[in-house]
């Protein structure tokens, strides 16, 4: 099996309240040198045959990410 990994992140200009909530909790762990936290999603796609990067890009663009608010990167996992 060949694995393609898709990382989906909110665009930098879109507010990430989940990331903010995590950042705000860090001082409770004694961490006070973190400027910001942003949360995304990692998707692992296992092809039954060869890894098909173009196909994975299509999947990412049409379904896994909403290009209005999110960016994504696609890579074959070695």
């Amino acid at each position: 099996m060949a694995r393609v990994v898709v990382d989906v992140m909110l665009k930098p200009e879109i507010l990430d309240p989940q990331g903010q909530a995590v950042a705000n909790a860090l001082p409770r762990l004694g961490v006070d040198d973190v400027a910001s936290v942003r949360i995304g999603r990692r998707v692992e796609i296992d092809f039954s045959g060869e890894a098909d990067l173009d196909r994975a890009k299509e999947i990412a663009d049409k379904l896994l990410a909403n290009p209005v608010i999110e960016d994504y990167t696609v890579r074959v996992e070695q």
Partner: protein
Amino acid sequence: MKIGVVTFPGSLDDGDAARAARYAGAEAVRLWHADPDLHGVDAVVLPGGFSYGDYLRCGAIARFAPVMESIAKAAGDGLPVLGICNGFQILCEAHLLPGALTRNQHLHFRNRDQRIRIETAQTAWTGDFSDGQEIVIPVKNGEGCYVGSPELLDQLEANGQVVARYVGENPNGSMRDIAAVRNEAGNVVGIMPHPEHAIDLLTGPSVEGLGFFTSVLKGFAAGAQPAAQIAQEVGE
């Protein structure tokens, strides 16, 4: 007039939407997500709820339901479509409406009666209101924060595509207090609060939500038939 109400796996408010259509004087037709046949309806409501469990993103998977392909095509021909809450999210994911809906800024689910201002009566679903009219209907969402680029928002305002705004406290952090938008043609409207829950004083804070349903009926009576239906009649 027949108003279709789609049921997706996880829809919650389809019953109330059908009831609101009947209260307004329409025949409510239940449509099924897996059935591409629109059964001759003259308008469609995509109801609230959690279609496909809100997996991935709200509305992202519902967009690919067989019924959505038919609705997208018919909407392009002028069929009035109203997306409420999850239905609004589905319309954005399907690119039938601009922008996107994201997690409420404060991360809390918000459920309360909400005052909104109708910004334009120039849509298939708000013709019965007057511009600037304020109404109170329930809002209940976890991911109702409307976002878009500053350019898009400017464009929506310039085109009169902002249909309603929150008045008072913004319940979810929506940019520019936007509660509802429409497409350029005005036949497709998405709204985050729930007009279908405000049609009877026994169960809602007002009966002002009924206006969305009476609006589409009046438009239909005035002869604004869906282009698809006209094409069908011409073909016969």
